[in-house]
């Protein structure tokens, strides 16, 4: 029989009881909407990490003093110094730039406002290596650093927190740990990189931080940007060699520092996000299955209600296959319609979440197609039993049905 005819019959039957069709589809609608929204959230989170990884450019390694164990307790021994940073910035083959930094949370005062923020002591190349840009004013210079000047560059969110126009803040003074600093620059927003927001930091020259604020010459982290033409491994080996020499570590002894690959770190975070996405999608998928059971339930009722129609159709020459197809097409259309509505709902929910909750969401055609295909499959799988029952009806019994 012509499939178009079957579709037409099914549509007519759905149209004849629209409200019930809607109730039938509700489970599928909610299921598909949930899957779409969950996957959109997960994909959004992954995109954010992707962007962050792209922003790395050439790989950036992060060097820190290694934790060491003393009587079973991990202790952080400070081993990295400004001299190490200097050693790593001259005559290196695989390292393009190094940025030493220390960071600490301090009380910041501006006028009569008090904030508790991360203050990062770093070198001028922090801007380029970590992919920041200036919005107003200028980054402090090497000369500022050498002169231990009390100047500060502030993150993009600070003007908002201080209720001030960004441009108007240039030249104003803030107090860090009761020491006066002049604001000389405001950064452009870089966006949250997931676990930390870099836009509410305050940057000051490294030497200033060491000599005027913390009072020691250690640095906490040295970021090393690997040359575009070199591999991460080559860079790691070179850094290790130089630092072991600088620290006078004898062969066979352990490093007193650790080199971490931030790209690797981001990759493992990405893997975790992916697992999380699948988990959420899986949970949402369960509701899709529950929706399918709803469809089966209503289709069984429909078959009972339409027993006489089935009898008439069989008396007029419908085969088992014709009847089977008719009910299967009907449940599949219900599921596809539900899938379509769910898709629209999920896309709307994703857009609303992005807009009002500030979560990055991405509805991909892949997730849309998967959810759509899945709802078609649900229609077929859960429609087959009611359809088989309809097809197996004996014509004479079906005609006698009241």
């Amino acid at each position, binding site marked *: *029989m*012509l499939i178009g*005819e079957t579709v037409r019959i099914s549509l*007519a*039957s759905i149209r*004849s009881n629209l409200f019930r069709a809607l109730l039938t589809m509700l489970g599928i609608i909610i299921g598909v909407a949930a899957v779409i929204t969950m996957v959109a959230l997960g994909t959004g989170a992954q995109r954010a990490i992707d962007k962050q990884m792209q922003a790395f450019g050439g790989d950036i390694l992060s060097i820190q003093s290694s934790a060491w164990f003393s009587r079973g307790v991990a202790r952080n021994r400070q081993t990295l110094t400004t001299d190490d940073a200097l050693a790593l910035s001259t005559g290196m083959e695989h390292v393009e730039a190094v940025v030493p930094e220390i960071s600490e949370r301090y009380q910041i005062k501006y006028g009569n406002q008090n904030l508790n923020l991360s203050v990062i002591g770093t070198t001028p190349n922090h801007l380029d290596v970590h992919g920041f840009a200036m919005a107003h004013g200028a980054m402090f210079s090497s000369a500022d650093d050498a002169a231990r000047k009390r100047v500060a560059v502030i993150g993009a969110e600070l003007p908002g927190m201080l209720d001030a126009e960004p441009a108007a803040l240039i030249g104003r003074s803030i107090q860090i740990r009761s020491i006066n600093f002049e604001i000389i620059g405001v950064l452009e927003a870089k966006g949250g990189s997931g676990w930390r927001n870099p836009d509410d930091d305050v940057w000051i020259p490294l030497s200033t931080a060491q000599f005027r604020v913390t009072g020691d010459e250690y640095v906490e982290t040295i970021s090393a940007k690997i040359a575009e033409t070199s591999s991460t491994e080559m860079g790691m080996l070179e850094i290790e060699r130089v630092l072991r020499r600088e620290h006078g570590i004898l062969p066979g002894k352990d490093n007193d520092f650790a080199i971490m690959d931030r790209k690797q770190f981001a990759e493992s975070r990405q893997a975790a996000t992916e697992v999380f996405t699948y988990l959420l999608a899986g949970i949402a998928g369960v509701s899709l299955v529950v929706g399918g059971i709803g469809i089966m339930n209503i289709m069984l009722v429909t078959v009972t209600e339409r027993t*006489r*129609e089935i*009898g*008439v*159709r*069989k*008396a*007029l*020459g*419908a*085969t*088992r*296959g*014709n009847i089977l197809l008719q009910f299967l097409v009907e449940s599949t259309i219900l599921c596809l319609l539900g899938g379509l509505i769910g898709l629209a709902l999920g896309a709307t929910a994703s857009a609303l979440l992005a807009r009002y909750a500030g979560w990055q969401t991405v509805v991909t055609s892949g997730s849309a197609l998967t959810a759509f295909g899945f709802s078609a499959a649900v229609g077929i799988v859960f429609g087959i039993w009611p359809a088989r029952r309809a097809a197996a009806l004996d*014509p*004479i019994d079906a*005609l006698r049905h009241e």
Partner: protein
Amino acid sequence: MGDEHIDALREVDLDVRTNEYVAIMGQSGSGKSTLMNILGCLDRPTAGEYWLNSERVSRMNDRQLAGIRNREIGFVFQTFNLLPRMSALSNVEVPLIYSGLPKKERVERATAALETVGLADRMRHRPSEMSGGQRQRVAIARALVTRPSIVLADEPTGNLDSTTGEEIMNLFDQLHDAGNTLIVVTHEQHIAARAGRVVRLSDGDVVSDVNARNEE
């Protein structure tokens, strides 16, 4: 229901020729409907054989029987059995859908069949918008539309008043004149009198089989 075994039909030996008009009579419960259902391939005999156009129908599988019901048989029910959500035209089209005919041809043939039964002006109406007599005409058009070898009608006037019943029986006369083979179940003597042959059933047995035209 229950364990009691009932033979709805027993000694039935019937031979119907092309363009015969047979009336089947008998008391309620005598097995008339059971016989019609077997002839219409809606039911299968537990024993015995049924041959239609030199084909042994009683041995056919489900799929083959559906084909026979579609092509060879036009069934008219006492309760019309139209599909309520469809127009008269769509109802008449249904058997042709299962024959696999394309839409254009279906509409042409269904329209012609409805014209034959005098419903050219009611084709877009639904069953609920028609009188009993009109509904039965739609059902007859639906039975005729596939040009079946045999038209079976189980008490086709049972749910109609006598005037309307009379009109329906006139229609059957026309169909017979046009060359159709008819088997009609009826309770009423004057209706049976229109047929050329009257078969009487009692408790599942054929008790008389009279060819009225020959007797005259």
